[in-house]
């Protein structure tokens, strides 16, 4: 038969078709597993997914707790009603959020865990027979109540935000935003909150508020300068007359202060605008732009809660005016306290940026750990030498510069102040402070913005002091 000869030949194509479909299906299985592994939470949390209601009918919502075990949000059952209560009320309003009227904060971020119940199967069955709901899983946050309270009190009646993170891990220790609201009253005050457009009470300013960074941005300008002139930056000299002029462009130092003869360290410590305008004009725009890119400007941040992207304009076409203004953190530059805190903490952490996070672990109702979150680095954003140089500069700000209100304590702080002008009227400036302590072996990093208060040195630095003290007191009381 003629087919006898052809057969082995023709089977080649069948093997090709067979392998193709087998591989296609293996790929499909891989795709399916990848989807399940990486998107389960996202699928549960989507408000279009009605399966949340099934869980809500089976389980009580779990509690949200602080690192020390204090209850930040609990569900109380009174008769048939389940009432979500927030014992610390306003103090944790933005960071913990609420879960009626939509979900915000940790209530939204950890919703997936809070609505599940991981108690043993036999208990679930017993509860089912008895017709009672299962207790949901509890979420332990990274937040420290004493530090949060200190930050809340320090900010007083100002609008603004505070964010405190642990340098080596990226754990968020405190996160305050003002104006605030009482989450216990959310249903009653809801209408007022949504109608009140101007004070934007619901906005978490710590992660979503975009502010001009002002002089705090000089940290980044300084970094760019050190990178471009690694051998000569120490011999930098500038004579400040209270203003800087190039062509038609002129800027003044804060309050027109005449800083006199300055080197690099002193320019930074005194936060001399004129000197930094001069520094900025010597920077290579594309290299500066690269530095900004590594620091995640105009980019996504590695966090799993709501935030805003920081903005900066830096390219070869930038005018002198824009370049001068950008070097001192003005022009179109905008940053969130969260992002500034991440950059500062990277300096404290020897150049490695940690991913900030709020949820430490999830436990079932009996305290068995269901899921533990661990610190993770987002990558190196500067060399350890650069981090060391910047730390020295920031220590000098505290010892001899604009943040002397933090000096003479039993720990050494390092930081940078800022007084960011947000409109042209004189004196309208946001007070900034970003820094860490102890400078030798940094533990926490504090970033503060006080809206419309005035200078950072006068308003933000004293707040930082209270927050650092609260942290070190808490640490001392543990030992």
């Amino acid at each position: 038969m003629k087919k006898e000869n052809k057969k082995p030949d023709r089977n080649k194509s069948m093997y090709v078709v067979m392998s193709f479909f087998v591989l296609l299906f293996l790929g499909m299985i891989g795709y399916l597993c990848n989807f399940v592994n990486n998107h389960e939470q996202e699928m549960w949390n989507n408000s279009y997914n009605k399966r949340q209601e099934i869980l809500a009918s089976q389980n009580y919502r779990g509690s949200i707790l602080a690192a020390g075990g204090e209850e930040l949000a609990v569900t109380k059952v009174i008769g048939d009603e389940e009432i979500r209560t927030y014992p610390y009320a306003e103090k944790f309003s933005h960071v913990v959020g609420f879960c009626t009227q939509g979900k915000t904060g940790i209530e939204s971020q950890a919703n997936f865990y809070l609505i599940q119940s991981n108690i043993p199967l036999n208990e679930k069955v017993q509860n089912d027979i008895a017709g009672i709901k299962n207790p949901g899983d509890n979420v332990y946050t990274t937040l420290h109540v004493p530090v949060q309270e200190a930050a809340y009190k320090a900010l007083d009646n100002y609008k603004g935000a505070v964010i405190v993170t642990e340098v080596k891990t990226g754990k968020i220790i405190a996160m305050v935003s003002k104006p605030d609201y009482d989450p216990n009253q959310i249903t009653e005050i809801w209408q007022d909150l949504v109608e009140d457009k101007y004070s934007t009470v619901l906005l978490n300013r710590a992660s979503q508020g975009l502010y001009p960074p002002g002089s705090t941005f000089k940290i980044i300008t300084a970094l760019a300068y050190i990178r471009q002139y690694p051998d000569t930056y120490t011999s930098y000299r500038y004579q400040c007359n209270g203003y800087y002029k190039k062509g038609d462009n002129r800027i003044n130092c804060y309050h027109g202060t005449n800083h006199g003869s300055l080197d690099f360290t002193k320019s930074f410590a005194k936060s001399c605008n004129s000197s930094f305008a001069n520094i900025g004009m010597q920077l290579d725009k594309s290299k500066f732009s690269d530095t900004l890119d590594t620091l995640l400007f105009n980019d996504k941040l590695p966090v799993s809660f709501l935030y805003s992207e920081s903005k900066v304009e830096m390219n070869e076409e930038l005018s002198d005016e824009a370049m001068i203004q950008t070097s001192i953190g003005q022009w179109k530059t905008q940053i969130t306290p969260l992002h500034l805190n991440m950059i500062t903490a990277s300096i404290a952490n020897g150049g490695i940026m940690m991913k900030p996070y709020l949820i430490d672990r999830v436990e079932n109702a009996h305290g068995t750990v269901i899921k533990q979150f661990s610190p993770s680095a987002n990558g190196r954003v500067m060399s350890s030498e650069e981090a060391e140089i910047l730390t020295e500069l920031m220590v000098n700000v505290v010892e001899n510069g604009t943040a002397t209100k933090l000096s003479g304590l039993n720990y050494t702080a390092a930081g940078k102040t800022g007084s960011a002008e947000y409109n042209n009227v004189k004196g309208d400036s946001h007070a900034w402070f970003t820094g860490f302590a102890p400078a030798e072996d940094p533990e926490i990093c504090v970033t503060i913005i006080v809206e419309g208060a005035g200078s950072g040195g006068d308003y933000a630095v004293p707040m930082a002091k209270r927050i650092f003290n609260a942290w070190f007191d808490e640490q001392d009381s543990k030992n």
Partner: protein
Amino acid sequence: MYLLLSELSKYFITILLALYTLECFISFRFKKQKNNLFYVRQWIYIFAIQFFAFYTMYVKQPKLIAEAIGDYLNIKTENLEVASYIVFFLFIQLVFVLMISISLLLLENCNRLLLNNMCMLLGIGFIIQTRMSAYRAIKQLTMVIISLILALIIIGILGKIKHLPDFIHFYSVFGIGILAIVLVMGNITHGSKLSFSIAGLTFQPSEFIKLLFVFFLASALYEKTNFTNILFTAVIAGMHVIILVLSKDLGSALIFFVAYICIVFMATDNFGYLLLGIAGFCIASVVAYRLFYHVRVRVLAWQDPFAYIDKEGFQITQSLFAIGSGNYFGLGLFGGLPKDIPYVETDFVFSAICEEMGVIAGICILLICISSFIMMMNIGLHLKDEFLRLLSAGFAVIYIFQIFLTIGGGIKMIPLTGVTLPFISYGGSSLLTSIVLFYLVEWIYSRYCEEGGAPLEKGKQKA
């Protein structure tokens, strides 16, 4: 205790299904063992899975089947909760037992793996259809019985026909004719002309025409594979595809197209034709994308379904919610909300299975389908008769590619095409086609054994 057992049964089902799947693949290694009773073990798994699933459903929804039977037969079924479950469950098992024994009786040599896989997939279909609507499950059962009878009649007739390739013009003219009639006079469902009704029964002819199309290609190409012959088949295949595209039945159009490319490639063993086919496929895709709005919508909804979650992306996002919420072990029968997905009983039945029976169960189903495909191709590989070889390989391709389209669409790997999952999806046309397809392969296998071929699965070693 009942509750605990029903909670645990989802794990039992997963384990049993995994064991069954394992046996499917072990069966390929038939040469190493003697008298292995793998198919008997597979029957036990099939039965046990059915048992646990119906037990769970009874614990969760005792009245489900009694009410459905009441509706279906228009009788009173109060106080018949347990009885109705037992009757329905046993009836399904009876159908399986009859199916297996009649097949073994009528076909001297029957491929056990394909037979078992058919039972397993039909069984999973009954479970998930019962969970979504017991009324539909009862209808599904009657359709399975009718399809089985028709399939046996069809292979009976085929056995009497001496030379099947002689009917080549019947295959093509009849196929194109029917598709054209649907295009002109068909009912419009969800914007596509897919079906027409005779005497209250709705048919979706593109399902059956697939089988005729494979017959046509095998008849045209089994002797001569010269260029003119290929060109002739290309014209006929093109007509099929164009009519389907005009009816907006994209899924079927794709299946015909891919089947054509694969069968020509396997008939000629010429990589040139394969490349030509792939090139043609790409061009056709681009043209369809540019030309048809409904193609663009599908692609858009696939690229970012969450952006169009209210409308175009609704189906696919609901499907993803179901799979994502179900995770590996599933939410348990009646533990989820599969009915939130539009057309869940037909196009998205896989997502419903993943949601309640778990993604592992879903993966097992994929593997069972792949083992069926490999077996069909394997039969083709061993056949000396070129016509039967092409038939078997062609059926294998249309079977597996349809599964890829429906599951790939449901998990957002590829855009949605709206085809059914063989044996599991609800619908008579789909069931009949799948069952006939498997019996055709069984018939080919028995012809192969008559030729004197060695068995292709373990346990039936020649003495």
